[in-house]
């Protein structure tokens, strides 16, 4: 693949997530927690988190979503989070472990509900699937992909090149029309001929 602005060593890729290697510690000063176990998550993480909260006498509830239902669950998440947050007080925290696509979606919905990053504990156990945003048709696609991959857009069927650019606001990576780059390359390679035809 040719080097692009995205691959350049500088400026740094600040929007790429830097996931912790170990599940984070929960805050015993919290008023309450909602724990999420999403898709191919290690259930032991959830159990460990729940145990520490029990020890600290922090009330908590848990949401466990099986991989089979994850895609549909993510689509409904904005509304689900509004329901979850209703009536909660400051002091509520969220901890989510599991598939990157779903962890990012939980974080985005939690921020929308008013939580700060310090009130979120995120742990990714599986980075195979991500959501890719298509700026051409504004739909998104859940797919096995990483930055550099090409994904067929579920909305407009364009082949999207996935960029190392993550929106924390939506929890999606940016994809752009791969053919646009091909077309530009063709145009550039033709330019000398054109110059010749015009002036030669």
């Amino acid at each position: 693949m040719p080097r692009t602005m995205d691959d350049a060593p500088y400026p740094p890729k600040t929007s790429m997530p830097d996931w912790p290697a170990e599940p984070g510690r929960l805050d015993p000063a919290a008023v309450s927690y909602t724990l999420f176990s999403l898709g191919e998550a290690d259930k032991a993480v959830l159990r460990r988190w729940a145990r520490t909260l029990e020890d600290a006498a922090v009330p908590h509830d848990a949401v466990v979503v099986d991989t089979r239902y994850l895609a549909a669950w993510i689509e409904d998440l904005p509304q689900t989070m509004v329901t979850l947050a209703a009536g909660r007080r400051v002091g509520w925290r969220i901890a989510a472990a599991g598939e990157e696509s779903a962890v990012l979606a939980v974080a985005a919905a939690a921020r929308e509900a008013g939580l700060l990053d310090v009130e979120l504990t995120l742990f990714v156990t599986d980075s195979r699937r991500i959501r890719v945003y298509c700026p051409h048709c504004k739909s998104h696609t859940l797919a096995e992909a990483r930055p550099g991959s090409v994904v067929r857009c579920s909305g407009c069927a364009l082949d999207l090149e996935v960029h190392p650019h993550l929106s924390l606001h939506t929890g999606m990576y940016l994809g752009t029309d791969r053919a646009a780059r091909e077309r530009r390359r063709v145009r550039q390679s033709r330019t000398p001929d054109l110059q010749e035809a015009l002036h030669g």
Partner: protein
Amino acid sequence: MADVFVAESIREVSPDVKEFTFRPAGPGAVLRPYAPGSHIVVEMSGKANAYSLTGDGTTADGYRISVRRQGDGGGSAWLHDRLRPGDSVRLSPPRSAFAPVATAKHHLYVAAGIGVTPILSHVRAALRWNRSFEVVYGYSAAGAPHLEDLRRLAPGRLFEAAGRGRLADVLAERLRQQPVGTHAYACGPAGVMTAFQELGGSFGWPEERLHVEHFAAPEREPGEPFTVRLASGRAVAVPSGTSALDALAEAGVAVPALCRQGVCGQCRVDVSAGIPEHRDLILTSREREANDCFYPCVSRAQTDELELEL
């Protein structure tokens, strides 16, 4: 920096508090719209004091401050006893160090005593911009400046507390009742601010949601000498009792600065190596731990040397 303004009107707010309204007078003096919670620096015959603006930020009524008289020799006594309507003073432009958080779902404003001044500004702005808010106001029998204003501005969402003990109870009750996404802001004596932060912390509030406005910077020790190293490799010695800001200026490296007391944040410098001794009132404890910047007006170094990105 400062421009000439004239005192348009002076009004007694409570027995020891007067309200001053200023209009631009000198060349270049203009009223600048400001973020709620901003302050101006008033220059008075060799002294300079910062006072919170009490308006909603649109400046239609001029710059307005309320000053409690403290002692006899200071700036507040000068304003109370010497300044007459029509007199000129030099004022800095507004500086914002206590602004509302734009993404907050709800705002809890906490005022104690004369700390009500920036809170008044917040309440007026919240009403103008239709922000969701409530106010806790603690006052003493000796005086409750602007209490009538708050009662008129925030009926049904003003929680009054007469006396320090009552304030602690009301504060605890309100801090436990805030919906997710609330940010809280307090201005008052040091004891009230400490209680605000400790109570908030004990009820699960992260410090990022608890905002405080200090009346005055604390007295600071002269500190140990250290060296700052610039990106060019050049070393500048900072002796005990001299700020890094002044040492750098002496060496011909001008860092833009405003308050010079670790409050405004203007002089922030990135640190690439070494551990600062943070003495500012700006960074949160998490931000301090990052050790990637410091405020040379007040902060010093724990290590012998600090490498700066200057």
